[in-house]
């Protein structure tokens, strides 16, 4: 039996790698995308462009605004002289934020009252707006803490001491790059498996395999092993780049990581082959690949957390193998999570893999047209 599986596997590798275009599509883009996306996908913002609308021009407003001017998060690009100039600057996205200091600012402070600074922010990207406002209130808080107590304002009687575990500087990249490992592994596996049976059906070569003395399980293995091996090799390469190129800490054990990777690949190959054996034409195979890939990635917790979803949708994501793999990747990379802590992530992928592979094998025979 294994000789026949080997023969099929070799044939499948030849089909995938003999065509130079197909070969380069499978190998080159994932690494290019790893580099580009790892730098691109970030929620961190530096140099937020802002404009100042200072109607007070007192020493105090200068001192407060200096906090913004010296911050690495902000970059002053314009100044505003009247209300009418604010809208064009924000509308055209020339600035994200306009800081408006009213004419009574110094007077209020001199009288020991609370002075207000207005922050007008472009909300078209609500997350960016929230981050900018967060940095802004941090700067104002520091100003208050330094400036207030010596001038008769009551000091705070408590303070927050915030620490972040696992990612002390809160760098998005540490969160995103392990995610990209999962993303690209999934894409590569889909590229190799999702169209492969449909193509043979369309070209008629699948009939030849079916009439040859192969058992369905052998045909299945012959299709699954190449996808699995290519996925394994590429994701190993990607993990190497993540660790040595991007210097993402890998705290956990490789054994745990690779247990997760192997199970994820089995489930991804299973889904790919299921799509492939359901599709009659390659057009349908491509549609199926997208129909799986797009939700699997958007609803995996890669960029937007699963806990933010409505609860019915959180429940629906249990069928998404990607969600488990992302927890494993981030857990092993950043938290040093142990095998036991991640056990709940392992078995669902094994179940998904088993079901999809069995159904795919059954469909190989069942759909002979």
């Amino acid at each position, binding site marked *: 039996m294994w000789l026949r599986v080997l023969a099929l596997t070799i044939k499948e590798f030849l089909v995938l790698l003999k065509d130079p*275009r*197909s070969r380069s*599509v499978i190998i080159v883009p994932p690494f290019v*995308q790893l580099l*580009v*996306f790892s*730098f*691109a*996908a970030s*929620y961190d*913002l530096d*140099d937020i462009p802002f404009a100042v609308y200072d109607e007070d021009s007192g020493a105090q407003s200068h001192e*407060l605004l200096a906090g913004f001017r010296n911050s690495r998060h902000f970059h002053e690009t314009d100044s505003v002289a009247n209300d009418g100039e604010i809208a*064009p600057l*924000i*509308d055209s996205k020339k600035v*994200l934020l306009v800081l408006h200091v009213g004419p009574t600012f110094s007077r209020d402070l001199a009288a*020991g009252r*609370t002075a*207000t*600074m207005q922050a007008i922010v472009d*909300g*078209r*990207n609500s*997350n*960016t*707006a929230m981050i900018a406002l967060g940095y802004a*209130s941090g700067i104002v*808080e520091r*100003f208050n803490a330094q400036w207030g107590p010596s*001038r008769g304002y009551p000091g705070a*009687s*408590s*303070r927050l*001491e*915030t*620490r*972040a*575990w*696992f*990612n*002390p500087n809160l760098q998005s990249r540490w*969160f995103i790059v392990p995610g990209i490992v999962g*993303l690209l592994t999934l*894409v590569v596996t*889909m590229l190799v498996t999702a169209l492969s049976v449909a193509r043979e059906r369309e070209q008629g070569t699948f009939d030849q395999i079916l009439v040859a003395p192969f058992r369905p399980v052998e045909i299945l293995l012959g299709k699954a092993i190449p996808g699995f091996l290519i996925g394994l090799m590429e994701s190993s390469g990607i993990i190497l780049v993540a660790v040595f190129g991007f210097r993402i800490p890998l705290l956990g054990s490789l054994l745990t990581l690779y247990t997760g990777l192997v199970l994820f690949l089995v489930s991804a190959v299973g889904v790919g082959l299921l799509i492939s054996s359901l599709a009659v034409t*390659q*057009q349908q195979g*491509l549609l199926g690949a*997208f129909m799986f890939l*797009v939700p699997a990635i*958007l*609803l995996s917790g890669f*960029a*937007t*957390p699963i*806990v933010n*979803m409505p609860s019915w949708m959180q429940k629906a994501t249990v069928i998404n193998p990607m969600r488990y793999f992302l927890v494993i990747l981030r857990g092993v990379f950043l*938290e040093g999570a142990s095998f036991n*802590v991640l056990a709940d992530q392992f078995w669902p992928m094994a179940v998904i893999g088993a079901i999809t592979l069995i159904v795919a094998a059954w469909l190989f025979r069942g759909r002979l047209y």
Partner: protein
Amino acid sequence: MSDRTRDRIGGIRPLFAGGMRLRGLIRKEFKQIVRDPSSLAIAFALPVVLLFIFGYGVSLDAEHIPIAIVVDEPSADTASFTAALYRSIYFDPIVVPDMIAADRAMLERRVSAIVRLRSDFGRRRRFGIAPIQIVVNGVDANTARLSTGYLDGVWLKWRVAKARDEGGNPSVPVLISDRVWFNSELESRDFLVPGLIAIIMTLIGALLTAMVMAREWERGTMEALLATPVKVGEILLGKLIPYFLLGTGGMALSVTTAIWLFHVPFRGSVIALFVVSTLFLLTALGMGLLISVVTKNQFVAGQTAIIVSYLPAYILSGFIFDIRGMPAVIQFLTHFIPARYFVAILQTEFLAGDVRSILIPNGAALFATATIFLGLSRIKSRKSLE
């Protein structure tokens, strides 16, 4: 094309004949579309289904963040702070007995932050500054930042209320009053849904046309088409027009879903949206056609479509990751992603209105990308024929 039709065309003026031939090709394409309904599914079902799922599923608004509270020695002070945390819509607190239990809850991902009030909290508040220890799980840096921001807000409100209760002067020197334009509630859905439309239309464009020319080559029907008097441009137009009509339908459905189901405000004009969407659809379809013409092989065309359409549009378009936060080199690269221009326009059209300084440069860029992709498809297909 049957002999009968060709004879009929033969007697008519050439220009008119071109129109007739084109009509024949379009009719043929429509028949193929109806026969394999996957194209119809792509154009009409896919946008609505995807927008429905993602509109609900893709959100950056963190609410009910699970946090663990450790109170070493309960007192009136700690009780009022804990109560403030319970009142906040952003947190779902649980009280745990000690730091060991809190650490375990964090490692098992049952909570994403720990708030700890030490045993001398009340005393140190009266004689100095009492620290409130906060530990957040920093793995998801963005959510961690949001959580600390919300904790900051809860703390500030508690502080002011406490100072007032204790008869002190609660005033701080400077307060920020923020005014968020275009999205005053800071709902992430309002900015994500317009971007999602751009992603979905990118996929649809690629899916609709990436296979069609390659299929004709692979099945040998391209030779049959070439043997007839149709011109190359007519073949391409015959492919483009039916799928353009399908794509426009899909776009209209998406916009309707966004407004009616997700209540995303639409503050721009329908005409501007229509013009820009047309340009973007032509770009997306042109990209698919180009892939199809260049590869001439459905398998490779499908693989290429997956690689070049989805992930770049997802990550490099500004749909979720702000382009302003990217390194300069990557910002430059995003100019090659047509979805980038469409996302910028859609976010502005939906939330801000017809802003000329956004519409004109991005619209011009889309016009350029449409011209380039369609022009290249034309040139490449001519070459491959000769």
